[in-house]
């Protein structure tokens, strides 16, 4: 409870660099509201996840109600309303990856990180105790030719095996 209160009270504002990017963004559209998705991406990159304060700030910037921002945030899977780990691991589990044993990769990651898989409403479930990793399942990442694939933050890793997963994790933790 106290945590939540602090979150609401910690105000949010773009840092200088993001402010510049935002000013550029807003020029692109005939209506301000259209900059919603890129603005939320920027804000999430700065804040880590979309807090109520972020929503309030974005709403003010785009001249819309906070409810409208919330409406959008809840619709898109890439926006988080809870803290996530430093590295977000997205494991693709749609058919082409499933045909290439993505399950093995997923189980291996689960065991290795000693965590469950996050659900959209409970990200904490898939986050490691040290807050370093969040493990989640996602739908097709449009790389089925190099299946099974995972994405860690912005990077794609291809043709995975448990051994390769170990190597990748080592470079991240080492």
């Amino acid at each position, binding site marked *: 409870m106290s945590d939540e209160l602090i979150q609401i009270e910690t105000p949010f504002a773009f840092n200088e660099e993001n402010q510049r990017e935002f000013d550029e963004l807003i020029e*692109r559209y*005939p*209506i301000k*509201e*259209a*900059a*919603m*998705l*890129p603005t*939320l*991406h920027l804000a999430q990159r700065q804040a880590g996840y979309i807090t109520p304060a972020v929503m309030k700030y974005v709403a003010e910037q*785009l001249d*819309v109600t906070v409810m*409208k921002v919330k*409406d*959008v945030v809840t*619709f*898109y*899977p*890439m*926006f988080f309303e809870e803290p996530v780990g430093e590295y977000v691991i*997205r494991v693709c*589990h*749609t*058919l*082409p990856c*499933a*045909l*290439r044993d993505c399950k093995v990769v997923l189980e291996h990651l689960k065991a290795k990180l000693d965590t469950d898989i996050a659900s959209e409403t409970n990200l904490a479930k898939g986050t490691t105790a040290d807050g370093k990793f969040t493990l989640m399942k*996602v*739908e*097709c*990442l*449009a*790389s*089925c*030719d*190099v*299946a099974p694939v995972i*994405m860690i933050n*912005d990077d*794609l890793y291809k043709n995975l095996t448990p051994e390769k997963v170990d190597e990748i994790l080592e470079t991240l933790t080492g």
Partner: protein
Amino acid sequence: MVEEKRILYEHLDVPDINTFDVFRQYDGYKRFEKAIAEYQPDDIAKMVMDSGLKGRGGAGFSTGLKWSFVPRDIKPCYLCCNADESEPGTFSNRYVLEKNPHLLIEGILICCYAMGIETTYVYIRGEFTLGKKMLDAAIKEAYEKGYLGKDVCGTGLNIDIYTHPGAGAYICGEETGLIESLEGKRGQPRNKPPFPAVEGVFSKPTVVQNVETLCNLPFIVGNGVEWYTQMGPTYGDTRFDPPKPDPNTGTKLYCISGDVNEPGVYELELGLTCSELIEVAGGLRGEEVKAVIPGGSSAPILTHYELDTRLDFTSLTLAKSMLGSGGIIVMNETRNIVDCLLNIMKFYAHESCGQCTPCRWGTPWVRDIVQRIADGGGRPDTITRPKFGVTESGRWGDTGETEEIYEDLDLLESVANNIANVDTMTWNTICVFGIAVSWPAVSYMRKFRPEFEAAIREGKLVTLPVAEATVPPEENYAYQQRFIPKELESE
């Protein structure tokens, strides 16, 4: 053996083709220059119409025809490039964005010139961080070189391109969902009409076009319509007399994944058969083909009896499937079709945007039925219903007989058909996502019914040998109703 015909992908692997200078060495922007120097905007639109180019994003709608619906007197008009690529099994747009982004920009420029468009938004799916970065860099270069911005190449045209990131929702690939999302809202598709060509983004006329479609434009302008129409078959639509030409021209970036030895993107002329494509992709990984999904996960499945179907828009439509986005997923004899359907239904249940009741409730319901069958809890009671099959007149229809069917299989079919009816091709939903759900559900169940029945009977997933798992051609609704189009004799 069919040869690859690389046109869009010809220079894909040239080092640094993503930079302006190298792209320029390979005819880059020369086709756009040719367009503005030699043709009027209407000429370009006519060329695109004559080329027979069909949209590569999923619907396969004639691009020239779509352009002709756009009112010329309402300005501004917008171009939205659909780079949302989220259909499972599809991955060709990604490579264009990451490796050859200038080609897309050139295609956009030609489209803008033809349609008098000044602003283009490229809607890139949120996960394509590298693709967006490369395209942004290419756009920046094009601005610096004077190919974008004010007074492009001294012609007085003003053309701007902006990239717009999505945020992980599949439904934003549907054109009106994309438009809503671009306007900063939830990506919930709109009722049509009005079609985007008339009233799209910011209530203005909007052309929505897939990346691959736009990348075809430089080649149509550069090499001419005649060169382009020689590629791929042109069928005669025999509902007309004389048969009306139905072009399936050009190449397609076929994305092949699953059980083949060399999955990847292969650019080939439209119209090769399914088995030929599997050969091109290094052959099957396994002993026997069990099933092939020909056009992304939304397309009805093909059995091993249907592998001679040609992979083009017309042939697949007449075979009661679709080319869709060109994502081909191959499954070998070790795969269980119930399990595959479960995977796909989980995808759709997750991605429904939730606007229409049949889709919002029906899709998870279908998933739950398949899950129950896969878990071994399929209900073993049977019901009696009218049997469809080849009737006395030799056509597919109600045979007047009855058949016994497991209650859960009847339920599966009935729920799916109430989202969108596969037989009548009518849907009770706002967008055709409904069809994308019921098509796989019904086709997998009907074509591989023995495997579903075995799962219910045995109380667990049973993978039958291919011959036993597949219903024979005479009981296959699609096989019986399929029609193989004939190519028009060229004069």
